[in-house]
């Protein structure tokens, strides 16, 4: 599905990263991708063709809500906020992710 610029991401990881990013507060799509890029020392470069489906999935599952607002440079931008459900999902996915990483590390050790 589309061009994923982070081929090394485990399936479902992008949703987790976006959730985590949104946990910091209201953000628009471009802001999310910039945040992920800078926080990972430019390793995670999330293209729009994976970011926006991921955001739509969050909306569909009720983990996030979207509303139009004004961006830093005074343009109309769509801002995403985490819902309580989203927060719960973040914790759950986080746990699952840790379990997975642990398992992989064990397997590779």
């Amino acid at each position, binding site marked *: 599905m589309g061009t994923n610029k982070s081929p090394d991401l485990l399936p479902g990881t992008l949703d987790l990263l976006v959730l985590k990013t949104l946990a910091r507060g209201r953000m628009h799509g*471009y802001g999310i991708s910039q945040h992920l890029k800078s926080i990972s020392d430019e390793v995670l470069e999330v293209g*729009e063709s994976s970011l926006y489906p991921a955001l*739509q999935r969050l909306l569909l599952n009720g983990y996030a809500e979207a509303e139009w607002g004004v961006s830093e440079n005074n343009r109309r931008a769509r801002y995403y906020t985490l819902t309580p459900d989203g927060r719960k999902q973040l914790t759950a996915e986080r746990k699952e992710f840790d379990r997975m990483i642990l398992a992989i590390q064990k397997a590779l050790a």
Partner: protein
Amino acid sequence: MKLFRRIRFWLRARQNAADLAEEIEFHRSMGGGPANTTMGNTTLAREDARAVWIWPWLESVMQDFRYALRNLRSHPGFALVAIAALGTTIGLTISLFSVFNAVALRPWPVDDPSHVFNILALNDRRQPSGFSLAEFRYLAANSKTFTGMIAQRDNQNVDLADSKAACSWVSASYFRVLGVGMRAGRGFLPEEDDPEAPQAVVVVSDAFWSARLGSDPRAVGRTIRVEETPFTVVGIAASDFTGTTPGPVDLYVPMAAASILQPSAAWMKAFLTSPDHCCSRVAGRMARGLSKQQGEAELGVLHNQFQNQMHQESRGVRLEGTAFIATGKKDKIVPIFAMMFLGVTLVLLLACANVGNLLLARAAARRREISVRLSLGASRTRLIRQLLTESLVLAILASGLGLASAYWLPPLVFRYAVSDVLSFRLTPDTTVYFFALGVSFVVCLMFGLAPALAGTRTGNTRHRLRGVLLAAQVALSVMLLAGASLLVRGIQKARMQDPGFQISGVSIASFELPASSYDAARTRSFFEQLTRELQGNSDNRIGLARLAPLGRATNWNSFRMPGETDKQRKMVVAHDANAGYFDVLGIPILAGRNFAASDADRKVILVNETFAQRFFNGDALGKSVVMNGPTEIVGIVKDAYTRGLDEIDATIYSPITGNAIPLALFRSAPESADRLKAVLQQLEPRARMSVTPLSDNLDQWLRASQAGASIAAALGMFALVLATIGMFGVFAFWVEQRRTEIGVRMALGARPSQVIRLVVGASSRSVAVGLIIGFAGAIGASRLLVRFLYGLSPLDPTAYAGVAIVLGAAGLAATYLPARRATKIDPMTALRCD
């Protein structure tokens, strides 16, 4: 919740797509220059993001549908039987609904029909009636709740130069208020409806324009001769306007122009101007944002004001929608529809039980498949959804078939049952489509849910459900057959019944006189002369009557006893007749005398037995009642079903007046019609005459009920076939399942008769329960039929015995083959099979 969000997304699909496009555009512009390679194809990104909302869900639904279709295709026999049974019954249901829709739901084909109402005044019997034209003008001028009003008279046949046409008199406001445009021409001008200055102008219907004026592009401005007067065509009505009366209309003329069409009619001036001259139908377009109650209240006040000026009492105004049924025919039409819906619903239930049984048998056959899927981890809900999707596919295919039949079945039945040309728009519209869709969902749940639940259950409860379905089929078919046989017996009884007067060998002649030169006095003297000429040399008498026996119209009149007030007036059937009427129809005079020539200017009446019994305890002769003035009862005649075969009404016979052209009744002999014609031509060369046998009226009278009985009989037969197939299926399946058991029994020495008893006995309890419920239900429901039975008891033993015999035969037929197959089971083969 997820489904809800999904639906909300699709409800605002366009907005959401725009949002996505905008935010991706924003993202892109923030990202900067062309060197940025993270920017892929934005359209693709948008599509992928949107796909999140549909994909998995739609895919699984599509998968279910594909699977269902494949499954049906691999069992064509089952699919055909199920679709045929359901399609036929759903077709009946949809057809009935589309007739109901045309009669009761569809408003007039006018602009914004939801604001157009029929306006009815309540008369002293609190029944809705119309208004005088004077009052119509008063209401139209003073109402604030209505932006416009129209008045209309029922269609009349008029003579054109070479043919006849249906003509309706309407107020000049008609087309403007209804928002009906002109295909060509200007329509009526307000000043063309002035009683003081009538204009000979006419608007023609689109159908008339194309059929009779040859679609002449210059038709507007042409003149056509109506009743020998040239009328100027001022408009051709829009092609989709089919009129506001049940019958088709060819010509519309302004009310005032009626005085041009019938210059010598004595009542014309009163009709156009007098506040007392009832009644024209009035309708209006209500201002937006007002309620029906506000309109009723305002018109009630105006009506009261107007009636008070005339020193009359008013009893309120009622507003009704413009669907056909609203025009005072509700009481007659609704019970008929209720009954037919009941019958059709029973058949639909029967078909559902039938198909449900087939599905159940299939579920048993698919037991292995289902348990494999369950053990592979499919959830039960998922499997139920799958099975229900199969049922839905069946139901939708059947509804499609049903909808197709709704295009041709209602017009066909209508043509058979109703002799009048009615311009109902029977073609299914959106309402009917939605109904069809609704029916397929309901039906799908009715026949699909129980087998789906039972089929995915791991325990073994299936025998009970099959028994219930069998009992339901038997019960439903008993009820349908009982209803049908009661109706058929009822119509038989009506046919055999002695109507109390001579029908065969009597003919009716109806006349047309040039309306322009015959007023009441001249009409009366003309017919006196006609009967004198004809009777002069023989005792072959001629009966004259205003209305024919068993005709479609009935005349009612009111009377009171001397000393009573006008408020105590009672309504009775009123016939105008001459002395010959009783001779020709063979209605004996029981007491007193017949009309005599000397009665012409005296106020005398004859009454029938029922009248004498009801109002005078039989002792009516020589008594007086007050009609227009004191009137003496000079004779009592024997009761006869002259109005209709359903019951005898208290009836008054008054001497013929000249107010309407009477009909002539005479004993048909080869030369009598010719002689009548000869005398008529000699007295008035412009007169025309047509003769029909009186038995035509009887046929017509019985026709609607006969159509009803035929429909009921057809439904009953159809139900019987469905039930027989259903029972056959159950027995055959039972035998198939018990092959081994039967084989063992036969190996152990069971005789064929014992095997047959086993087969029959297995379902006998369900059948017995079904029979009991069915007969109880039929007896309970038969009360609803009373008004269609012509006096036959709803508990008529013959009808019920007939049902029992027919059903018994069907049951035998259904068990015979399976039972025979059971006795032919070879024990060895059966045992080796498993």
